[in-house]
């Protein structure tokens, strides 16, 4: 079983569009949405939810106003500015418990918080494990780990050839949690100077964690000179380009219809997606 995680560094380059198309093209796989705080893959794959699980995040502090004497020791102890007017802001609290330790009146308790849910669903393209982190919660990395673990377990159980994961943007906690231990990072870039800058950073993260990378240039014809820069950069770094996908409004039309673009039309975009999947599958 090979786990392929689709990343980009910069957001909005087309990760979900690519994953949805590969979902329709690849056989014998389990799908996984690791972008738990802005999940979109389910909007295209139209899943039927089979299992719902609760995700309990970090504990947060609560101050009992009846017991609190207003001494302010917790205020000075908290390094996250989470205590204002002797009330804990649950969105800022990182659950360290410093306030609990310093309170001379034992007015502080740490309570569990339901931080979101994760789901095991069926789609036309196979099982999908996905999640929804509640707005503003911590620990997206931990939820990503839970989702990935389940997707891998299902794949192992069913003897699937691939786990195909839609990753989050950025390079921090949820990206590291999505990437570490995967067999391949497929990086979706676009020919903007911003996306190139972000591509270089996300490739450095892949190197840091020892995960091989393959790059796809989306909307390559918006700036062919920048696309050549990406190709030159990748050639020097020894990274293959899986496909170059042109800008086409058919991609947005497919999102609006809620179907993978490869099932929406048989134009150049679909051809290039097929080329991309061949390049991915050829890795093994």
């Amino acid at each position, binding site marked *: 079983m090979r786990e392929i995680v689709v990343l*980009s*560094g*910069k*957001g*909005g*380059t087309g990760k979900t569009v690519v994953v949805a198309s590969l979902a329709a093209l690849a056989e014998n796989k389990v799908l996984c949405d690791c972008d738990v*705080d*802005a*999940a*979109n893959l389910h*909007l295209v794959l139209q899943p039927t939810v089979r299992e719902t699980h609760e995700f309990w995040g970090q*504990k947060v502090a609560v101050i009992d106003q009846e017991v609190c004497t207003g001494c302010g020791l917790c205020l000075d*102890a908290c*390094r996250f500015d989470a205590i204002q007017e002797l009330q804990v802001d649950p*969105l*800022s609290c*990182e*659950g*360290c*418990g*410093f306030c609990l*330790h*310093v309170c001379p009146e034992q007015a502080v308790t740490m309570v569990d918080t339901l931080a979101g849910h994760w789901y095991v669903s069926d789609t036309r393209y196979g099982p999908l494990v996905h999640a929804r*982190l509640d*707005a*503003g*919660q*911590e*620990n*997206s*990395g931990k939820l990503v780990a839970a989702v990935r673990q389940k997707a891998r377990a299902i794949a192992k159980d069913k003897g699937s050839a691939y786990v195909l994961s839609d990753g*989050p*943007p*950025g*390079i*921090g*906690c*949820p*990206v*590291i949690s999505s990437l570490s231990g995967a067999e391949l990072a497929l990086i979706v870039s*676009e020919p*903007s*100077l*911003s996306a190139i*800058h*972000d591509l270089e*950073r*996300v490739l*450095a*993260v892949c190197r*840091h*964690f020892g995960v091989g990378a393959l790059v796809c240039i989306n*909307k390559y014809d*918006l700036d062919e000179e*920048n696309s050549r820069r990406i190709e030159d950069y990748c050639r020097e770094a020894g990274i293959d380009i899986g496909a170059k996908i042109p*800008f086409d409004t058919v991609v*947005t039309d497919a*999102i*609006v219809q*809620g179907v993978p673009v490869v099932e929406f039309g048989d134009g150049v975009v679909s051809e290039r997606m097929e080329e991309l999947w061949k390049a991915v599958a050829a890795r093994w």
Partner: protein
Amino acid sequence: MILAIASGKGGTGKTLVATSLALSLEGQSPVQLLDCDVEEPNAHILLRPTITSSRPVLVPVPKVDRDKCTYCRVCSEACPYNAIAVMGKNVLVFPELCHGCGVCTYVCPEEAISEEGREIGVVEEGRAGEVRFVHGRLAIGEAMAPPVIRAVKQRADRSSTVIIDVPPGNSCPVVEAVRGSDFCLLVTEPTPFGLHDLALAVELATKLEVPCGVVINRAGSGDQEVERYCAHQHVPVLLKIPLDRQIAELYCRGQTLVAGMPSWRKAFRDLLDSTRRLAVVGR
């Protein structure tokens, strides 16, 4: 005024809006742009500031004095992040798991723990024309963006208009970047993806008690559902930027909208005026 530019979904045009807003104030009033997307900062690509200072962002991590430690495990039991562990006659610190909260240092009965700074990124400052510029960069392989975001926000000068470029998503880095702002502009695109993540972002802004309004980028593509949602939720749509290949090409080359198409300057000034009015009403 502090104005946060957020979106939920990535790549909707936050940086495009933030940089053009900042430039539209040139010659009018002092403006500062804080790029809080410290995982993938991009505002510098469009503004091309001259960086004049760079300082490391340090998070405090525990340092254990082996001569004083009695291996009593009080520290490891108190740490909710499993960042410090006692194994026989050995104390292990996992700095990448440490949030720097200071609890282990406080609870140690032997005063065997002190703290040392560990660098997880940098904050750079400079100037692009009249725009005072600050951004943070999380180091490769580091997981925790919020301390770097906090360090960027500490540079905010409330006597000027402060524009914050917020990271994508809806979790802790966004909370860190948006909280304390007077108004939050949510940049979205008129697609089911844009709408889904916009609804989460509106929920988050409401939780943070920051009034918000919407900018629809690539207007004219997709469908009408974002506008329907905004009307229904009484979230004002303050600006629409059309889907236009020329705008996309400008962005690819790293040019701001107001520099590449100066006729947009007025629209961004008006947008800023709208946010100022709504920030007052919202409070």
